Structures are given as structure tokens and as C-alpha cells.
């Protein structure tokens, strides 16, 4: 514009001058031609320089036409009235031409300005369209907007989600520090932005004085007076913020300027709204994706420790700058399971820091508090005071956390089935946006899923462990009964069911007291205190099947139930009793012959009496027999000891069982009680056997002694021999007291003696049959009994034939 004006002025002076110079060069151009040329010059000047240049050119051209070309020439006074009228006409026409061009020029200039504005707005729009992140949009608005508005500086303040705070989110062109202390301020404040947003109305101040009059607080701003425009950013009839333009000088805001600013504000508002929507949608999608990924991750493994560590990494960096997972250990301490950050070095550093500053479970805030109260902590804006409080006077720690530039934090509890398992912490530093309620919701949802996964993994592990345990329990011989707190049977293993004589399937779920006979005894003697253990105690239980059984029981209470371990000690108990019975029996068995021997000796040695030879003989005989008996008992006890220790070595010799049997009978005949008849019936073809002849003699002699002993009313004792396959079979049959069928298997046990009522006072060590069985079996033979009470007994010994 400026260059064309200069050209206009040049044309205004030079063009008439050039035409005037034609007079000198040419030989008299006509008056009409000169007038035409002068009009062209005026047109040119007006076209290029506007009305003023046109006017100058018009004056110069009029004077030139009059002086050089209107007769009389070289004189300004026209020769006649016609000529004067001609010059006047020329002047009028030239002025009209100038005006005509001036108007045209103005129209063109306006069009150009409009185009330029449109271009600037277009540039703003283009930049806004390119901008993706909210910050880019805001930057584009202030940068391009300031330029488009021909302002010096600009700023955007947005209404925060709380609806009460305005925050300066972008600014450009201002002196440094102008916004210090004004990064955010209340909507209700007496500020141009506050008012513009409140009233959804723009404010234009042409001068600083005008501004200060409206807003007293602004009076402190120094510098030369300048104009200021504040416009609300309105979207869908709602002010979301305001934009301010500060101009370098005082400006009158005409309608056009105001309209331009309004357009800019509108564009900015729409762009901000659009990017916000986009951002919200993107965040939503990101959250959904994150949640989906997290869920997949959580479901992928039962190793929840690894999974949670992966989850923490998944949250970084989109969801958080830092993400950590803490777990409540069984002992009540809080253990950091994972820390995640984009930079592995930072992770290592954080882990070291975590070890240096272990969390105190009683801490009033942070992870311990979240776990304790099972309530999320949401700190949208981490204020410095908070850091100071958290550092608890530790200057070094305070410096460290200050340096981290932590901005916003969310800590949510991991809660499953009403129990806090730990906490998930998300922290953003000042490179990332603040957390919003949406993020809190997301974190809560994530924590819910993570807790559920941890819980499931725990349950699964427990189930698996229980599975293992119950498989193991199914095979142990010890009984295990698991009771719930209310005494109901949670589980009972097969051994316990067997010991307690109950049906495993039938009693589970029932109370132990109600379904297990004898449990009250256990309850009284082995029930542990809460959290304690008791036992083992050995108790006689009368079971549901009516039998009595000795059971060793111990109980362990583990808070929400108790486990009882049971062992059937009936056998041991019986053996114990049998053994102590044996001590009594053996002592009795020894004392009786000893009494006879000792008594006989003392009697014989009496000096006050002289016995006749018969009496002396009787006493001597007694000593002989009873000493023999004594030695037999001692021999049995010793033999038992040898058998038990495995020290007894048997001969392996060939001998005739018939001859052996006959010799046993012969020696038994020597002191046979009256009423007893001894007989041997041997088959013709009994072959030789292989074994230890002396020991077999002991066996048969023992069986014969028993047969005699247990025939107190007298009767026949018959020894029968015959071949049975590869064995020689020796039967010792009596018609004495007999043995009940259910005692048959027990009479061969060590120390076992029949009930005294059945033996009618017959003495014995309880070792004879045990020894017999052991000896026969060691000769690869077998021994058995066939007997009924009142009908006598038949003992059968089978010894392998010699090859």
C-alpha cells in the first residue's frame, strides 16, 4: 500500500511535468491532445496515489494546460472566456477522475485487508486443526491468535473441573513473572477473566486507565498505557474460560476489531472444546485398552506376584509416571511388590529408596493408611506442604521427593472379600496431566480386578495346596480331622474315619460332637485354646460302633477352626498292658517254684525237727522238680530275648519226627498228673524232616505240657503224626478247656494269655506258644490251632520233609 502511494505521489508530480515538457520537444501539440494527456496523468496519479495525489496532479495539470497550451501561451490568463471555461472544465473533470480512482482504491484496500484478516484467521484455524494435544491447541491459540489480533501478548485461562478456579493454561508475549501468583485464581475474583467468564461477555479497554477504572486490582500493572481485550470462550452457551489480548498501544476497538476478536475467541473455544472431547475420548479409549490389557494380564497367570509387577509396568507411562504395588504380608508388614517407571535406573533407585524407608503400617497417610482404612487416597495436586508432612522432618527425603516433581497421586486399596490385600499407587510428575476423578475411577476398577485376581490366585493356591494335602492325608495312617470354628467337620481323612469308626462322607458338615462317638472325650481333653496347641493325650474312646479304642489325640487351633491329629494306640496300649502283665506274671511264675525250692531247703535245714526219710525224699524231690521248672521259665524268657534279637541260630538237620515225638511223650509220662492219658498214633510212612531237632522237641514238649495243663479235669492227650504233602504233620489233641475262636490268632502273640476265667487259674508266662510259633516258622514250618471251648484243642505243627 505504502509503495503504491509513493508511486502515486511521483506520478502526481512527474506526469504533468512530463506532459508540460512536450511543449518544448514537439512543435506545438494541439490544445485538445494536451488536455487529454493531462487527464491520463491525473488518472495515473489518482490510481496510484489516491485522491490527494490525484488532486496535486489535477492542480499541476490544470496549471500546465493553462500556461503551456491555452492561448495565449506562456501566460496563465486565458485569452477568452471560452478558453477559461475549458481550463475550468478540465479542472472539474480531473477532480472527478481523482475521486473516482480514490473510491476504487479504497474498495480495493478494504478487500485486501479483509483478505489479510481472513488469511490470519485461516492461519489460526489451520494451526488449530493441526494441533492434537490440548497444549498444542492452547499454544496455537495464543501464538496465532495474538498475531491475528495484532496484539502484543495473549493468555488463556480455563475454568477447572471444580467450576470455581481459573487456571492460566497458556500465555505468550508477557513479561516474565507477570503471572507469578496468578497461575490460578478463583472465578469469583475481581479480575477481567473472572468477570468475562461469569458474565459470558467480552470487555474491551482502549487504555490502561479505562481498565484500571473497571478493575482496581489491575492498577498495579506498570508500563505505558495500552489496550486490553478479554473475551469469554463460550461453547454450547457455557463459558469454559477466557482469552486475553494485550496490545502494544492504545487502540480504539471499532466494530470490526471487536468482531475479529470475537471470531478468534469463538475459534479458540471450539478448538479447546474439540480437543477436550478428543482428549476425553482418547483417554477413555486408552483406559479401556489399559483395563482390557490389565484384565488379560491378570487372568493370564496364577503367579500374582509376577502378574502385579507386570501390571505396574503396564500402567507406565500412560497411566502413571510411577506405579507401585504393595502387599500386606501375613505378619502385618507392608511389602513392596513392584515399582515401575520408564527408566529402569529410576526403578532400581526407587527400590533402594523403598528399602531405606520401609513403610510404617501406622503411617497416617499413603499406602499404610489406604490398606488400613481400605479407602482410596486421591491427591489431584500434590502441594509442597504435603511433601513436607510426608517427609516427617527428614530433610534428605524431602529434597529427594521435591526433586521428583510429583504432581498428582492416586492410591487405591486392593480389597477382596472384605480384606485388604495391599495397595496400588499411581503417581504422575509434572510432565503429565493431573489425575481426575475419571482416573480415580479407573484406578479403583483396576485395583478391584487386581485384588480379585490376587484373591483368586490365593484361593486356587489354597485349593491346590489343600488338594495336595488331602491327597497326602488320604494316605497317612494318622487320622486328621479339621473342624470349623462352630465345630462342624470340614474334612476327615480315611485314617481318622477308620479310627473313629465313622463314615467319612456321612459326617462331613455335621458337628463332631453330634456325629462322632467319643468326641466329647476329645473335646474335654484335647481341645486347644484359640491359637494354641494341646496334647498329645491318650484317651480311651467309646466309639459309635460300641468298641473301645485308645487314641492319642493332639489339637491345634488356627483361629477359624481347629485340626486334630489322631493315632490309634489301642495295639500299643494292649502290648503295653500285656508287657506289664507279663512282668507281673513272670514274677508270679518265678516266685511260685522259687517259694517251693526255698521253702523246702529251709524246712530241711530245720534243727528243731528231724524228718523221716520219706518226708526228706519228698522235699528233695520238690526241690528238684521246682528248680527244673524255674530253669524252664528262665529258659523261655531267655529264648524269647534271643528270638527278638534275632540271635537264635537253628540247626538244619535231618531227623525222625516220630522218634522225637515218642521221646517227648516218654519224658512227660514221668510226672504225669492223675487222670491224664497220653497216646501217640503215628502213620507208617512219615518221612524224616529237616530242622532243629532240639528246638522241635521244645515245641512239642511245650504243646504236650499245655495240653496237660489245660485239662484240669483229666482226659486223653493224643499225638498224631502223618505226612501232609511236603510236610510232616504233628497234631497234639486234648479234650480240655479249649480256646474261643476269636482268641485263636492271639494266643501265639508274645505275652498273650487267655482271660483267667478261661484258663481257670492255669499259670504260664504267655511265652510258650509264641516261642513255639517262632521256632516252627524259622524251620520253614507252620503252626495252627483248632479249638472250641469245652471241646478241647488240637495244635497242629507242620515241619518240612527232608529232601
Amino acid at each position, binding site marked *: 500500500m505504502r509503495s503504491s502511494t509513493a508511486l502515486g505521489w511521483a506520478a502526481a508530480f512527474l506526469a504533468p511535468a512530463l506532459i508540460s515538457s512536450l511543449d518544448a520537444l514537439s512543435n506545438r501539440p494541439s490544445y485538445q491532445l494536451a488536455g487529454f494527456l493531462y487527464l491520463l496523468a491525473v488518472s495515473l496519479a489518482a490510481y496510484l496515489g489516491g485522491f490527494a495525489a490525484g488532486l496535486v496532479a489535477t492542480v499541476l495539470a490544470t496549471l500546465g494546460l493553462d500556461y503551456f497550451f491555452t492561448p495565449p501561451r506562456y501566460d496563465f490568463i486565458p485569452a477568452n472566456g471560452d478558453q477559461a471555461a475549458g481550463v475550468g472544465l478540465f479542472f472539474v473533470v480531473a477532480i472527478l477522475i481523482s475521486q473516482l480512482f480514490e473510491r476504487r482504491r479504497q474498495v480495493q484496500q478494504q478487500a485486501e485487508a479483509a483478505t489479510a484478516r481472513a488469511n490470519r484467521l485461516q492461519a489460526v484455524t489451520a494451526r488449530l486443526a493441526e494441533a492434537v494435544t490440548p497444549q498444542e491447541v492452547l499454544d496455537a491459540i495464543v501464538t496465532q491468535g495474538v498475531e491475528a489480533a495484532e496484539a502484543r501478548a495473549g493468555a488463556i485461562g480455563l475454568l477447572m473441573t471444580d467450576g470455581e478456579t481459573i487456571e492460566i493454561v497458556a500465555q505468550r508475549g508477557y513479561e516474565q513473572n507477570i503471572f507469578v501468583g496468578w497461575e490460578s485464581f478463583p472465578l469469583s475474583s475481581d479480575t477481567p477473566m473472572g468477570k468475562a467468564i461469569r458474565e459470558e461477555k467480552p470487555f474491551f479497554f482502549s487504555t490502561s486507565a479505562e481498565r484500571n477504572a473497571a478493575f482496581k486490582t489491575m492498577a498495579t500493572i506498570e508500563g505505558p498505557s495500552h489496550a486490553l481485550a478479554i473475551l469469554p470462550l463460550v461453547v454450547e452457551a457455557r463459558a469454559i474460560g477466557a482469552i486475553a489480548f494485550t496490545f502494544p498501544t492504545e487502540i480504539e476497538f471499532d466494530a470490526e476489531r471487536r468482531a475479529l476478536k470475537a471470531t478468534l475467541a469463538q475459534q479458540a473455544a471450539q478448538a479447546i472444546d474439540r480437543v477436550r472431547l478428543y482428549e476425553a475420548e482418547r483417554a477413555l479409549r486408552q483406559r479401556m485398552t489399559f483395563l482390557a490389557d490389565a484384565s488379560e494380564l491378570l487372568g493370564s497367570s496364577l503367579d500374582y506376584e509376577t502378574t502385579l509387577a507386570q501390571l505396574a509396568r503396564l500402567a507406565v507411562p500412560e497411566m502413571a509416571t510411577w506405579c507401585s504395588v504393595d502387599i500386606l504380608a501375613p505378619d502385618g508388614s507392608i511389602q513392596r511388590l513392584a515399582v515401575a517407571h520408564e527408566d529402569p535406573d529410576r526403578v532400581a533407585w526407587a527400590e533402594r529408596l523403598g528399602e531405606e524407608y520401609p513403610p510404617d503400617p501406622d503411617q497416617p497417610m499413603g499406602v499404610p493408611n489406604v490398606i488400613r482404612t481400605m479407602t482410596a487416597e486421591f491427591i489431584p495436586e500434590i502441594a509442597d506442604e504435603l511433601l513436607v508432612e510426608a517427609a516427617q522432618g527428614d530433610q534428605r527425603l524431602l529434597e529427594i521427593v521435591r526433586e521428583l516433581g510429583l504432581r498428582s497421586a492416586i492410591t487405591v486399596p486392593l480389597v477382596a472379600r472384605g480384606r485388604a490385600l495391599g495397595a496400588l499407587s499411581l503417581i504422575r510428575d509434572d510432565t503429565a496431566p493431573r489425575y481426575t476423578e475419571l482416573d480415580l475411577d479407573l484406578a479403583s476398577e483396576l485395583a478391584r480386578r487386581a485384588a480379585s485376581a490376587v484373591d483368586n490366585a490365593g484361593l486356587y493356591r489354597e485349593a491346590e495346596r489343600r488338594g495336595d494335602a488331602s491327597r497326602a492325608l488320604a494316605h497317612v495312617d494318622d487320622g486328621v480331622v479339621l473342624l470349623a470354628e462352630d465345630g462342624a467337620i470340614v474334612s476327615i481323612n480315611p485314617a481318622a474315619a477308620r479310627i473313629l469308626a465313622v463314615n467319612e462322607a456321612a459326617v462331613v458338615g455335621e458337628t463332631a460332637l453330634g456325629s462322632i462317638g467319643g468326641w466329647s472325650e476329645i473335646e474335654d481333653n484335647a481341645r486347644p485354646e484359640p491359637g494354641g496347641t494341646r496334647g498329645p493325650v491318650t484317651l480311651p474312646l467309646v466309639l459309635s460302633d460300641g468298641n473301645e479304642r485308645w487314641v492319642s489325640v493332639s489339637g491345634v487351633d488356627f483361629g477359624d477352626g481347629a485340626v486334630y491329629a489322631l493315632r490309634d494306640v489301642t495295639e500299643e496300649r494292649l502290648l503295653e498292658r500285656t508287657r506289664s502283665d507279663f512282668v507281673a506274671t513272670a514274677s508270679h511264675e518265678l516266685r*511260685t517254684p522259687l*517259694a*517251693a*525250692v526255698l*521253702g523246702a531247703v*529251709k*524246712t530241711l535245714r530245720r534243727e528243731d525237727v528231724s524228718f523221716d526219710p520219706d518226708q526228706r525224699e519228698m522235699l528233695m524231690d520238690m526241690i528238684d522238680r521246682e528248680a527244673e521248672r524255674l530253669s524252664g521259665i528262665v529258659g523261655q524268657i531267655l529264648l524269647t530275648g534271643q528270638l527278638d534279637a534275632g540271635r537264635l541260630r537253628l540247626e538244619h538237620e535231618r531227623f525222625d519226627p516220630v522218634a522225637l515225638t515218642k521221646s517227648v511223650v516218654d519224658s512227660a509220662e514221668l510226672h504225669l498228673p492223675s487222670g491224664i492219658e497220653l497216646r501217640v498214633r503215628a502213620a507208617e510212612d512219615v518221612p524224616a524232616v529237616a530242622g532243629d531237632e532240639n528246638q522241635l522237641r521244645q515245641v512239642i514238649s511245650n504243646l504236650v505240657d499245655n495240653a496237660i495243663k489245660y485239662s484240669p479235669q483229666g482226659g486223653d492227650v493224643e499225638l498224631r503224626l502223618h505226612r501232609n504233602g511236603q510236610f510232616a504233620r504233628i497234631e497234639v489233641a486234648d479234650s480240655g478247656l479249649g480256646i474261643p475262636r476269636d482268641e485263636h490268632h492271639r494266643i501265639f502273640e508274645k505275652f498273650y494269655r487267655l482271660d483267667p476265667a478261661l484258663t481257670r487259674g492255669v499259670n504260664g508266662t504267655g511265652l510258650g506258644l509264641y516261642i513255639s510259633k517262632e521256632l516252627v516258622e524259622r524251620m520253614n514250618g507252620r503252626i495252627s490251632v483248632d479249638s472250641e471251648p469245652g471241646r478241647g484243642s488240637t495244635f497242629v505243627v507242620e515241619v518240612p520233609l527232608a529232601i
Partner: protein
Amino acid sequence: MLVADDEPPIRLLCEVNLAVAGIEVLQAADGEEALALARSEEPDLVLLDLMMPNVDGWTVAEELAAEEGTRDIPIVFLTARATTNDRRRAEKLGALGYVLKPFDPVRLAPLVAGVVARCSQGEADELRRERPSELWPADLEG
């Protein structure tokens, strides 16, 4: 005096040594026999073994104590059963002595004669309280 024991040597020893002291001895080989003889002969004292066929010594003592005619016959146990429990049980049954096998048969006559003498003077209860050590040997160990 009645000696009830299933072991013939013991009965024989008692008989020989008591006869020397001029004591007449009846013999029973089991509990049944002992009860019958005690009822029919009413001896001055019963030397009673505990472990006998058919009816044991405990039962014999209980039955004798339960019957009018035999209640006052003094009983001295002569046994190989050495436990404290046995001794206590004998005490409860009102026994006046507990002689443990093996025993010195030579001392048997003065011992039982003493018991019979005290009892005939109506001092059975005092004797039970006194429990002289030769009648209740102290070296009994269960």
C-alpha cells in the same frame, strides 16, 4: 487251719511246718474246695493263695466275709502277687496278713499262731491297724 493253694509243693511245705508246731492242716487245691472246707470245718485261720483255678482267692475272701458263719475266720494271703494294688485290695478285704512267696515256712507257724491268738482275744481290728511287718512285708514292690 486251712491252706488253700493250687500248688501241691506249697501246700506240702505249709503242712509239714505247721504240723511241727502242732497245728492241724486242712488242704484245698482250688477256691471251690477252700470255700466248702471253710464253711464245713470253720478253721481258725485260712492261708489263702490268690491265683487258683475255678474260684480265685479274692472271691473266696469276699464270700467268706459275706457269710455269717465264716465272717470272723481270719484270712492271711499267701501269694506270689507282689503289686501294691494287690496288697491294698487284700487290706480292703479285711485280710490280717499278706505273706509273699517265696517265704520262710519255718516262721509260718509262729506267725499264724500269733494272728489266731490276737483274734481270739477280739483284737482283729487292732491287728489290722498295726500291720506287723512280718505279716505285711514292707519290701513289696509293684
